[in-house]
């Protein structure tokens, strides 16, 4: 019988009060808990159907309103973010414990349904939060929900034997719930969200073990916060609430850089798609990551021969789908065709610039006239094809690309045609984005770093327009003058540019276009040794 709302709510309220009494019993009361859960199950409230949803929704409503009503007592507006009204989390903690106990004591013969209940409970919580945020708008308070999730992360993450084998499914259920609550969808939950996603009871577990199956979920969550920040980060001046979230994100990135650098290495491509080009230091953190077992030679070592480094001929692991943007814009077919036939005068090259532009309407929203992920995808995809061709042509014993293969070999293939067409046809903005896509590959010693470092230096040397040389310098330079960290590949490329006389760097007029620029060049080149 479909219970009417008021009657159902009263019933749930009584059940909740009874649960509270059980929780208040001194000492451990597993037997009482298990008995209570059994009763709930026998009353049909835990089938995972619509009634279950209503049951958990009622409990959420009861516990949240109890928590928020405790806030009314204290008075006066808040003066600073650090000053918060005390809240009572008693009801929230009791509700969290009920869910944990249900998952723990649910009769094992129901095996699979034990865990299928968790995503349903989380889905109820997600919908409730979205609705609450939608209705309350600026008076929405995330703290009760934050506490609810913290309880579950600490309890479920406590490696209780019940969950030993299924811990990964628990983590994924939370990852999906957090993705549904991402800042773009519930901006009022952003701070609580970032703290939950980076919590020591969640993020490390998602990134450790399980054969890295948790990595795509963490990548998606990081992209969620980058996508939210992206429009705000296009401007240098950030409003305090954005700056606070930005700084918090930097802290999370530093923990990842220190503890899980391989995660940042393998997903750098996706992250560069959503970090605005102006956000140089945040991008540098990601591009500076290198595998923990790798030792990087000091870039300023005199006569450093990067060609002879063992790692320089190894391809980096890239877990993002490099050619997806090309496929989405239906360019991949034409590109592959062009690279295969290398048809002189084919329209592919002449039409390329147009294909990289966004439709006017989208350009306004994206803050640029170009489709940045598409440029990133084109540059890396074409470069990877060229590297494959090079390695196919190089005898296996001499795999390090430059030591045995003459530099001229780099020039074979259509990659250079494409890159030279782009650098000549694109306007200043387009060229900047193209050069950024190349510079984003200057990371730790690997064959992408090596190849794209060569490409940048070659374009500098071969270009007959000083504006292009200036822009190449600017793209490298703006990444070096920001606070550390600086990617290894960026440093070695810049040092090569300013040291190798064949680039004639210091004779270029733009190195002396203003006294402070001249001083800046000298100080950066000094710091590069």
């Amino acid at each position, binding site marked *: 019988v479909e219970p009417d709302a008021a009657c159902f709510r009263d019933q749930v309220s009584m059940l909740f009060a009874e649960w509270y009494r059980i929780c208040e019993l001194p000492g451990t009361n597993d037997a009482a808990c298990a008995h209570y859960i059994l009763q709930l199950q026998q009353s049909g409230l835990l089938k995972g159907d619509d009634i279950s949803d209503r049951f958990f929704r009622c409990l959420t409503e009861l516990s949240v309103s109890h928590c928020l009503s405790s806030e009314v007592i204290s008075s006066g507006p808040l003066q600073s973010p650090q000053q918060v009204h005390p809240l009572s989390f008693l009801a929230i903690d009791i509700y969290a414990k009920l869910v944990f106990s249900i998952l723990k004591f649910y009769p094992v013969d129901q095996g699979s349904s034990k865990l299928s209940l968790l995503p349903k409970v989380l889905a109820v919580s997600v919908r409730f939060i979205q609705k609450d945020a939608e209705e309350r708008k600026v008076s929405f308070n995330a703290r009760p929900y934050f506490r609810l999730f913290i309880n579950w992360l600490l309890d479920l993450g406590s490696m209780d034997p019940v969950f030993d084998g299924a811990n990964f499914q628990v983590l994924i259920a939370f990852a999906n719930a957090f993705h549904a609550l991402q800042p773009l969808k519930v901006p009022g*939950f952003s701070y609580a969200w970032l703290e939950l996603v980076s919590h020591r009871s969640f993020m490390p577990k998602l990134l450790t073990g399980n054969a890295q199956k948790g990595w795509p979920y963490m990548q998606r969550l990081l992209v969620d916060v980058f996508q939210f920040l992206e429009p705000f980060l296009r401007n240098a001046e950030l409003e305090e609430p954005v700056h606070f979230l930005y700084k918090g994100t930097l802290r999370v990135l530093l923990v990842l850089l220190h503890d899980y650098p391989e995660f940042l290495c393998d997903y750098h491509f996706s992250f560069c798609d959503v970090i605005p080009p102006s956000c140089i230091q945040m991008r540098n953190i990601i591009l500076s990551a290198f595998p923990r077992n790798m030792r990087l030679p000091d870039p300023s070592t005199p006569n450093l021969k990067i060609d002879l480094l063992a790692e320089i001929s190894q391809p980096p692991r890239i877990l993002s789908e490099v050619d997806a943007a090309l496929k989405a814009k239906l360019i991949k077919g034409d590109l592959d065709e062009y690279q295969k036939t290398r048809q002189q005068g084919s329209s592919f090259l002449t039409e390329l610039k147009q294909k990289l532009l966004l439709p006017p309407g989208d350009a306004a929203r994206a803050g640029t006239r170009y489709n940045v992920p598409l440029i990133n995808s084109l540059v890396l995809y074409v470069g990877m094809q060229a590297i494959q061709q090079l390695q196919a042509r190089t005898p296996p014993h001499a795999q390090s690309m430059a030591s045995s293969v003459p530099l001229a070999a780099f020039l074979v293939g259509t990659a250079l045609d494409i890159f030279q067409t782009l650098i000549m046809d694109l306007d200043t903005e387009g060229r900047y984005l193209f050069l950024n896509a190349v510079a984003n590959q200057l990371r730790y010693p690997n064959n992408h770093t090596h190849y794209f470092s060569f490409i940048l230096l070659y374009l500098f040397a071969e270009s007959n327009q000083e504006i292009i040389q200036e822009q190449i310098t600017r793209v490298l330079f703006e990444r070096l003058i920001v606070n550390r960290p600086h990617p290894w590949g960026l440093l070695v490329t810049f040092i090569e540019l300013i040291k190798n006389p064949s680039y004639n760097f210091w004779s270029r007029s733009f190195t002396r276009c203003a006294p402070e620029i001249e001083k800046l060049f000298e100080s950066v080149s000094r710091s590069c040794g």
Partner: protein
Amino acid sequence: DLGTIGDNLGGSSANSGGMRDQSYSMQMLEAAYYKLPHPKDSERAKSYIPRHPAVTPPSYPQGQAPIVNNPAFWERLGADNYGTDTLFFAFYYQQNTYQQYLAAKELKKQSWRYHRKYSTWFQRHEEPKVTTDEYEQGSYIYFDFHTSDEMQRGWCQRIKPDFMFEYNYLE
């Protein structure tokens, strides 16, 4: 959903429904900025659940006396010579509790040192004969549980002459 990002139009997967324009987001973010989660929101009272609760008559206190979570109580024990055994008891038998942490802190204050490999506390009995960057060697008192003869089962302190305390085992 786990694949590429799509266009740089402020997010693709999030585009479906519920997409917010920037000013709305800023407004909500600003409001949330004044209701940040507080550090206490993540802290939970450590409800100590004894692993092997000693069954006692109901007239006995069933919960732990709050004083065991008061650092001053442990400092008093630390100051009192006979309190050391109590510190060791709390460390070894009240594991994963705040009082274990407080007891460990007091033991450290009395220059007891926890050896991670032997899970045992050592204290120098005299100046070590050898000290290098990696270890020190000499005779130490250590706190141990001895079962040598049934009459004497229990905790005791022994001297370990010529023991090498490698620093990488020092907790």
